[in-house]
């Protein structure tokens, strides 16, 4: 074989995932696995999931049919087989369906069933799983070339509403720690929510990038609402981890470093707001944006100051305040008021 070509190919051994992704994914993966526990498997194999669903839904009919089997066995068995196989098959394939597909309604229905049946311990993880699905569906709809832009925007708006609901439910679980069986579980949920928040923010930014000037006000507002909800869940997750750092097995230094990282990320956003303010032509919008940037900056400075004193909870509160100011500014810009000069999404 040609050694020169092989040597060239072997250059690609350098292809690796980024270290940050590797570490983050490890954390998310292990949090998900731990959160699943030994009771039930969230994303169990499609066949096991399908069977559990079919059994719970059709258990009465199943028992009745077994009795009838002894009277008219062959006909009944054949009819039942066809019925059960077609229903199971439909359910099975519905799980990968996308908005607009014939089986999408079944997918959503099955999610409702799962939500109703899940234990409080597993509820948050299920919400995150569904949020993942919504983001995936948003991506699929965005990529469909044959769909008209207005129709795409409408579908995506609906999906964003659903995703917002999922994020809000995750936040509620983190707020209501008593609903979860152990502190360890709530910490696992918090870590998972933290890891996912970054991904969702990026994905929502990509959705907005298809309409950077926010021509579609409704969609821009929905994206903003979803982002605000993601940030709220993320902030709550950070609060939980700070509060339960011993259970999270984090040292003071690690907690401090994590908060500092969030402060740095938010500082980057504040800088973007300042640059945006400088570039606006409308004086009212300029003043408003600059004022928001100043307030957000002030909150961040306060966060840094209390962090130095190891007052972690206060630092998280100030950080949250800064993020809320930026989110609120974006929301106002997305409000659809023609007089309001649009500022591009800074995420």
């Amino acid at each position, binding site marked *: 074989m040609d050694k020169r070509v*092989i040597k060239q190919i072997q250059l*690609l051994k350098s292809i690796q995932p980024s270290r940050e992704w590797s570490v983050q994914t490890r954390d998310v993966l292990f949090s998900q696995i731990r959160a699943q526990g030994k009771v039930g498997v969230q994303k169990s194999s499609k066949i096991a999931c399908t069977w559990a669903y079919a059994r719970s839904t059709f258990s009465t009919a199943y028992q009745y049919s077994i009795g009838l089997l002894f009277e008219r066995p062959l006909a009944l068995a054949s009819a039942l087989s066809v019925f059960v196989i077609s229903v199971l098959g439909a359910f099975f394939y519905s799980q990968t369906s996308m908005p607009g597909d014939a089986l999408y309604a079944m997918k959503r229905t099955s999610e409702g069933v799962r939500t109703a049946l899940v234990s409080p311990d597993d509820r948050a993880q299920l919400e995150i799983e569904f949020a993942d699905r919504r983001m995936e569906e948003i991506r699929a709809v965005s990529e469909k070339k044959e769909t008209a832009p207005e129709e795409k925007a409408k579908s995506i708006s609906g999906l964003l509403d659903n995703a917002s609901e999922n994020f809000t439910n995750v936040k509620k679980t983190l707020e209501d720690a008593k609903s979860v069986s152990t502190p360890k579980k709530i910490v696992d949920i918090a870590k998972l929510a933290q890891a996912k928040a970054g991904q969702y923010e990026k994905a929502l930014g990509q959705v907005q990038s298809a309409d950077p000037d926010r021509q579609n006000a409704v969609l821009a507002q929905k994206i903003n609402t979803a982002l605000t909800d993601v940030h709220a869940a993320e902030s709550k997750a950070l609060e939980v981890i700070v509060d339960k750092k011993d259970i999270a097995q984090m040292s003071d230094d690690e907690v401090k470093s994590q908060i500092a990282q969030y402060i740095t990320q938010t500082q980057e956003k504040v800088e973007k707001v300042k640059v945006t303010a400088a570039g606006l032509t409308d004086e009212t919008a300029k003043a408003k944006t600059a004022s928001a940037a100043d307030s957000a900056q002030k909150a961040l400075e306060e966060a840094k100051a209390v962090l130095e004193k190891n007052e972690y909870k206060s630092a998280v509160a100030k950080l949250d305040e800064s993020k809320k100011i930026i989110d609120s500014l974006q929301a106002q810009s997305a409000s659809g008021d023609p007089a309001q000069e649009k500022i591009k999404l800074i995420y």
Partner: protein
Amino acid sequence: MRKIMKKFLNEQILLYKMRTGDVNAFGPVYDFYHEKIYRFVYLKLPTRQDAEDITADTFLKAWQYIQEKKPIHTIQAFLYQIARNLVVDFYRTRGITLESIDEREIVIADRTDLTLEEKMTLKSDMQEVESALRKLKDAYREVIVLHFLNELSLKEVARIIGRSPGATRVLLHRGIKTVKGILGEGR
């Protein structure tokens, strides 16, 4: 032979521990295989994010299958097979092809031994080879990645792709020949 037996026994111990729900036993599996799985699916998928997603899903699915006590001969083959199936599902649900991708930046391992100019040259050479590999049939690309990049023996590759070692060797030769042709055309 001793080395192979030791590796096999260690794997069986890990599998046993994982089947009993010992999450810590999964750590070494992730740590050892995640880069290899990533590299394997990276050249099969349109974007880096897709490769990241499929890699993460591979390990999640692997854990679930282990908990379901599905029979597993070797962890390596098991992971690659899950990754392959996920890639197939990926294209089935999206209806796009590998060719319909945008240019994307290769992420390379930290190479502190190289100057900036050398890194730029490396990236450029890598992009050329990557582009050539993406033009191959999936069967050729797969065996090349598994054998030359992930350093699996032909027997191990054969097990993963479900062919005989002889057929795998033929695929490898043809794949290299095709890559050579593509690289030659570009010059």
